[in-house]
């Protein structure tokens, strides 16, 4: 008789599902200010524990505490708050516009605004981001016109991408925002290539890669880490862990490694985890990693621990796979409220001013939307030309495309 034990497959499951009480007791949250800040030229071997901790600056009372605090002035923080509020208002308007049929699709940032807004403030003009679809804060904080974002979302006659790309897959070379693919993970390794090129040319600009928790399972992630590590590319590699990959909880991609940041340890990379809902912490960690890259000390892997409050996209309904109240239970709070409370505590902001700012910002977003809608929305008004569909496949149109365009009658 075969007495060998029978095998069984382990399939990870989140602790809770719809109808259950949300439970984040497994998320260990260190006290704000408790994680040390190493010098940027630290030997990565010395800071392996940072891959298992969470760097936090804002405490429960809204104070900025610890060695990572103090990278921004109050005025800069106030600007940062406005960026996040703008992104939130922008999302709200565009979600409504999608429901009204003005575009086919939208992806919002609710809960994750600090990650891209704060990171952008640590970069210089000329640096290049290779973003995913949930980093529009890089554009907002980088001064890219909201009207152009909306023109792209509406695929209208003024769409900078000529109607060729799915909504929110922006591109702006001028604003250091590489064309978003929509395929997951592919751009992580391209960011490394851009950084290698900058090093080959003895330039001073750096690249920044972005990827989600789910997409770290793609081979591109591993290729990016291998190349970044081998050639010490001047790149900052960001994993935005918002806990959910559409309906799949982060444990499916993470497996047994404890944290996503820990994936960097085997490559000899400094790997840091940061409170992604803490604007000041994200900025401080970004500044540290950017300085490392700028000083030719090599790449850094950062895991931003955050939570996707909204649906994955307008084609998704999270109530089918997670408790409806889970976002309220998320222990790192809301990035906008936390930064607002900090500024109030600093005595440079108030609830009243916040309400005023909200109203002003919403007016600005609405004005931008009106301007964009003058150029049309997906199904009405001005549209990109059909002729444009055939342009730009190559620098010069080859004969077969000329024949096809002729056949299409445009």
């Amino acid at each position: 008789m075969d007495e060998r034990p029978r095998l069984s497959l382990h399939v990870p499951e989140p602790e809770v599902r719809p109808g259950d009480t949300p439970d984040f007791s497994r998320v260990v949250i260190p006290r704000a200010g408790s994680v040390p800040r190493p010098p940027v030229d630290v030997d990565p071997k010395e800071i392996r524990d940072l891959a298992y901790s969470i760097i936090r600056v804002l405490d429960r009372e809204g104070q900025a505490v610890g060695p990572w605090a103090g990278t921004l002035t109050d005025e800069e923080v106030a600007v940062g708050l406005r960026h996040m509020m703008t992104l939130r208002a922008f999302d709200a308007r565009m979600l409504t516009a999608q429901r009204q049929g003005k575009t086919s699709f939208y992806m919002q940032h609710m809960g994750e605004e600090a990650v891209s807004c704060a990171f952008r403030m640590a970069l210089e003009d000329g640096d290049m981001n290779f973003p995913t679809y949930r980093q529009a804060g890089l554009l907002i904080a980088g001064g890219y016109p909201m009207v152009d974002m909306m023109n792209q979302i509406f695929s209208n006659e003024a769409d900078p991408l000529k109607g060729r790309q799915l909504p929110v897959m922006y591109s702006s070379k001028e604003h250091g925002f590489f064309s978003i693919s929509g395929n997951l993970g592919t751009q992580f390794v391209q960011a490394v290539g851009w950084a290698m090129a900058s090093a080959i040319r003895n330039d001073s600009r750096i690249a920044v890669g972005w990827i989600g928790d789910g997409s770290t399972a793609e081979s591109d992630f591993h290729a990016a880490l291998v190349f970044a590590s081998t050639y010490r590319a001047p790149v900052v590699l960001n994993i935005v862990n918002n806990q959910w990959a559409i309906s799949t909880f982060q444990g499916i991609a993470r497996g047994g490694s404890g944290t996503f940041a820990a994936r960097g340890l085997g490559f000899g990379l400094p790997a840091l985890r940061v409170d992604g809902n803490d604007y000041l912490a994200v900025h401080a960690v970004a500044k540290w990693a950017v300085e490392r890259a700028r000083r030719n000390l090599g790449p850094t892997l950062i895991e931003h621990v955050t939570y996707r409050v909204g649906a994955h996209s307008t084609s998704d309904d999270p109530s089918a796979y997670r408790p409806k109240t889970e976002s309220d239970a998320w222990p790192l709070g809301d990035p906008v409220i936390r930064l607002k409370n900090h500024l109030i505590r600093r005595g440079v902001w108030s609830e009243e001013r916040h309400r005023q700012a909200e109203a002003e910002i919403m007016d600005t977003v609405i004005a931008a939307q009106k301007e964009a809608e003058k150029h049309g929305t997906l199904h009405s008004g001005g549209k990109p030309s059909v002729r444009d569909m055939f342009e730009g496949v190559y620098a010069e149109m080859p004969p077969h495309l000329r024949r096809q365009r002729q056949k299409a009658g445009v």
Partner: protein
Amino acid sequence: MARMTMIEAIRSAMDVAMGRDERVVVFGEDVGYFGGVFRCTAGLQQKYGRSRCFDTPISELGIVGVAIGMAAYGLKPCVEIQFADYVYPAYDQIVSEAARLRYRSAGQFTCPIVIRMPTGGGIFGGQTHSQSPEALFTHVSGLKVVVPSNPRDAKGLLISAIEDPDPVIFLEPKRLYNGPFDGHHDRPVTPWSKHEAGEVAEGHYTVPLGKAEVRRQGSAVTVLAYGTMVYVAQAAAEERGIDAEIIDLRTLLPLDLDAIATSVQKTGRCVVLHEATLTSGFGAELAALVQEHCFWHLEAPVQRVTGWDTPYPHAQEWDYFPGPRRVGEALVAAMEA
């Protein structure tokens, strides 16, 4: 002028391109210090330094992925995939990224990269060193696909590819690296030094992409071929005494349809050749174009002679390879139809 093998001509092309343009960088597996398993990059690292010619980890996805990022920065990477059979891990980067970057960013970002890879069989390489995957690339909008058949063309086409503003898949028929090969594997190998196309200019010159070349003038039947099959076609035509017009396509995408149509309208017969498998192969595209553009001139069905629809075998290599016997039979069939 110098006598060059196809390997030397390809190396010379990269040397010339790197010498003229500092933005040209060359990398891949075993490409740097050692100079490539086929020696195509030998000496380039010594001449241009490690930051312009270097070894990479064994990651085709990584090689192409970083090349795309470098191109977006403004460099002109010319990368080597050690064998075309190994390109598949990079397929997503090529198809979803390199090929579409110009289009989806409305020209803000472009991707002037060259992806070189040895292709085709005839060296007892078995299924992992013999494939001809060109049709997987000709099906992709935004790519250009080149297959040279001799040293002189290889150099001029590779320089054109490196200077091209868009991504180019550059397939090098490895059985032609050291000499023309007509499929008679049991006969002595002819070196390029004894072939007129082995005479190659040492400096800069280009052969334009998208232009075919008539290798043999004829009036009885048009043979459409590229890479190794050009020589197989020549041997078959001579052996059967058929006055075939043999067109070396050189670039598959964009294709020189004018050259094809002009010839088939003249001969009224057409045989299409490739080493790659038959079904959904590039020959299907050629046959379809010929019937679209030459139907009223055709006097016989278009014939295809290709590799069989099996994985590329090892011991049965010469039963698989579409050699001069099978090509000759197709020529006769086209003539007698």
